[in-house]
């Protein structure tokens, strides 16, 4: 459990167990970009 608290961010996204979860991550990436574009 302490490992999780001390873990340094890895370089890459690991293999994701479920394709649907990966889709939600990608959707969020796009939403973040949209929010940045909206602010700018």
């Amino acid at each position, binding site marked *: 459990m302490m490992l999780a608290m001390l873990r340094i*961010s890895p370089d*890459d996204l690991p293999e994701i167990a*479920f394709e649907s979860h990966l889709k*939600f*991550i990608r959707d*969020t*990436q796009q939403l973040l970009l949209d929010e940045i574009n909206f602010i700018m």
Partner: protein
Amino acid sequence: MQKKLFCPYCGLRLSEKFYENRKRLFCSHCNDPIYENPVPATCLVVTDGKGRVLLVQRSVDPKKGLWCLPGGFIELGESPESAALRELYEETGLTGQIHKLLGVMTNPSQLYDSVLLVGYWIKMYSGNLIAGDDACDAAYFPRRPAGDRL
């Protein structure tokens, strides 16, 4: 998923019948079809201020050892939002606020045949990151897979 063999109401053996435009399990004694539905579940994309996403490592099958978003099944009497936040706390020790509904989709499942997955985005949260419940580890990762341009 193991196929239902017996009626959950009368206990007699089920058959298959074309009913209401599709083949369904049917109880001849009750004279009713057995409607089968996706199991509702939630998942959460938790993003931090450094452009990373929170993942948990699964300690149970299916896909034991792989990483996924925190989340889990909605229990009776729970709203999707409260189920999502409960699962977040159980698996990561974090208390969060839902920022946005990301979407709803159905997915095939080895165990449950079909899962109705409700995805939420969380940007505001607090607490110490500690893996628990079905998760054996939890960590923040970059959002992009290696070589992925989006």
